[in-house]
């Protein structure tokens, strides 16, 4: 409805009114009519435009529209709520993306659980480490085929149609977030293709995002009662993640590298 109004205003402004011929251009009558029409159009547009803008921001992403540059997906992880025993995010990731539980060092890990211990105080805490979805991703810089890329909404992905498995991106990533698939794959999840000879990493569950969902790890963390992971749009100042980031002292891992990661941590 609003779209029609926005479209209608130039129509009213540009097209001659039906009575133009009878009163003639240049007559006071013509000018008055034109002014009234333009004023009405402007008023309607002004009244409805804020609503239109709200819908634009709040509307769920439709599958056909694709990724929008107006968004940047990010995560805020509260490590004080991350416990020693809980691995809900890791198992949810494995189920969602069809990964097997890793048996060897070379098996794919899209999320790793890191344990940090302060040598002096003995304080131990944990954090999930995955692709940080950098704004300036080094994996994309080094990729010789253009397979590593950053989607307009900030999700860093591997286009495995182009990946030749050279693993430069794995070398370049300071977070060791990427894995190489060494073995032939069977029984992949229909929405998550995976194959031998290509590199892969956390995709923020793009297949879910594109349908308006949230990543599986975030969902599982909330369901397990941990509530340590907050997912949202970093470009929207009204989103919960943006408001929280404005309040708290969050840390980005290796912020000194200037990669502008999309994932922030609390309490590290």
């Amino acid at each position, binding site marked *: 409805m609003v779209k029609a109004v926005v479209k209608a205003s130039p129509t009213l402004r540009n097209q001659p009114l039906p009575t133009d011929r009878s009163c003639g251009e240049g007559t006071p009558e013509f000018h008055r009519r034109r002014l009234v029409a333009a004023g009405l159009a402007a008023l309607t547009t002004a009244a409805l435009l804020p609503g239109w803008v709200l819908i634009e921001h709040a509307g769920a992403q439709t599958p056909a529209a*694709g*990724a929008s540059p107006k968004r940047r997906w990010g995560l805020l992880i509260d490590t004080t709520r991350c416990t020693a025993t809980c691995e809900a995010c890791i198992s949810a990731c494995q*189920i969602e993306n069809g990964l097997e539980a890793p048996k060897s060092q070379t098996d794919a890990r899209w999320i790793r659980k890191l344990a940090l211990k302060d040598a002096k105080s003995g304080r131990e805490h944990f954090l999930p480490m995955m692709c940080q979805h950098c704004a300036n991703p080094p994996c994309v810089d080094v990729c010789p085929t253009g397979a590593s890329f950053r989607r307009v909404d900030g999700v860093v992905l591997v286009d495995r149609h182009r990946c030749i498995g050279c693993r430069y991106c794995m070398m370049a990533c300071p977070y060791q977030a990427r894995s190489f698939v060494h073995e032939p794959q069977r029984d992949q999840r229909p929405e998550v293709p995976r*194959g031998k000879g290509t590199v892969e990493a956390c995709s923020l569950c793009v*297949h879910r995002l*594109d349908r308006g969902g949230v990543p599986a790890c975030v969902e599982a963390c909330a369901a397990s009662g941990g509530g340590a992971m907050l997912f949202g749009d970093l470009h929207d100042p009204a989103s919960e993640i943006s408001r929280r980031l404005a309040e708290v002292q969050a840390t980005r891992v290796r912020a000194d590298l200037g990669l502008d990661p999309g994932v922030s941590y609390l309490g590290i």
Partner: protein
Amino acid sequence: MLRRIRAARGSVAIALALVIAVLAGFTVAAARDRVPERAPVFDTPRGEQCIAEVTEMRRNHMRHLVHQRDAVVREGKREARQGLQDCIACHAGEKSGSVLGETGFCASCHRYAAVSIDCFECHSPRAAPKNGEQR
């Protein structure tokens, strides 16, 4: 006498030529309509209508797929009925639930045409569970 024989020869030659032409025509028509002995036998698709005409899909399905894969992977445009998963949802066999195998929709025809595809080294040949269905 000699003239008569010559005239008869001419008409016989014309008649023979006609017979050969008609026979050749039949052969060509028969060859066109003939179903090859080892034509692919595949599972019947579930849907009623494909996204384009059958002739277009037979010749150009790979172009549709390549176009769609870049749109999905790089731009996140997951349009309904266009992706490989949507193809599989219709074309997977009722029994096998897959487009591969002896009578698989993809496998049978590519085997016949001696075309080696590597889609299914990464992609699942099985139909995705419908909304609400358990994985």
